[in-house]
């Protein structure tokens, strides 16, 4: 990967992951961007919303579909120092889930809180 130019100060990123884990490559792409930004020592937050909440579920049988396990990638986010991992309350409710079913602990946030996060981020990427 290319070196970052020296003059740049770190950006704050908000990644909004709203795609189901295996219906397209969007889920993996969102995580790849989060991991890459974190590897370049940017400040990264990720919020799972809509069908993206399904990415967080434990016991994903990705092998059965010949795919890589998205849940495992999510557990790598903290190792890469992705600062904040959140999930939209509405999505948790809509899919009738409980945070105990997730691969790791996440902060549950409201729509209002997400608005504030979007307003405060230098770059917002929705996938």
């Amino acid at each position, binding site marked *: *990967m290319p070196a970052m*130019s020296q003059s740049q100060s770190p*950006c704050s990123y908000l990644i909004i992951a709203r795609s189901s884990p295996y219906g397209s490559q*969007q889920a993996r792409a969102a995580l790849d*961007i989060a991991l*890459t930004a974190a590897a370049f020592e940017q400040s990264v937050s990720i919020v799972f919303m809509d069908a993206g909440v399904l990415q967080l579920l434990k016991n994903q049988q990705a092998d059965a579909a010949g795919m890589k396990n998205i849940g495992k990638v999510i557990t790598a986010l903290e190792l890469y120092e992705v600062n904040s991992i959140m999930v939209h309350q509405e999505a948790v409710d809509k899919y009738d889930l409980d945070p105990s079913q997730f691969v790791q602990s996440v902060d549950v946030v409201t729509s209002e809180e997400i608005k504030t996060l979007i307003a405060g981020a*230098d770059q917002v990427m*929705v996938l």
Partner: protein
Amino acid sequence: MKFSIVIHGAPWSSSASHSALRYAEALLECGHEIVRLFFYQDGASSGSSLCVPPQDEINIPEQWQVLINKHGIDAVVCAASALKRGILDAAEADRYEKNAHNLLPGFAVSGLGQLIDAAGQSDRVVSFVQ
């Protein structure tokens, strides 16, 4: 302002690439600067020199090439995205022992780090997903 544009969708099955092209043209007409175009996932297909749409349809990759070369825009196709879709430059074709290469002149193959680098230099990053 300084913009970077991320193109996620394929040139023919979504409007992402065509919309991004029109958007890029509009930005330049308005006097804005494009730091980088980043062709990600299916967007990498916009770098193919082998697309032959019917004559009465727009040739999106060719239009990108015209814009990129006319304005000297930095245009990157994501390496992993491009390779798996059969979009290769001469060096990649050589490395993977393929018998042809098809990346349009003006496009470069590089990594996702180029997107993060572009975001750091841009006031806005605009993504065209579908």
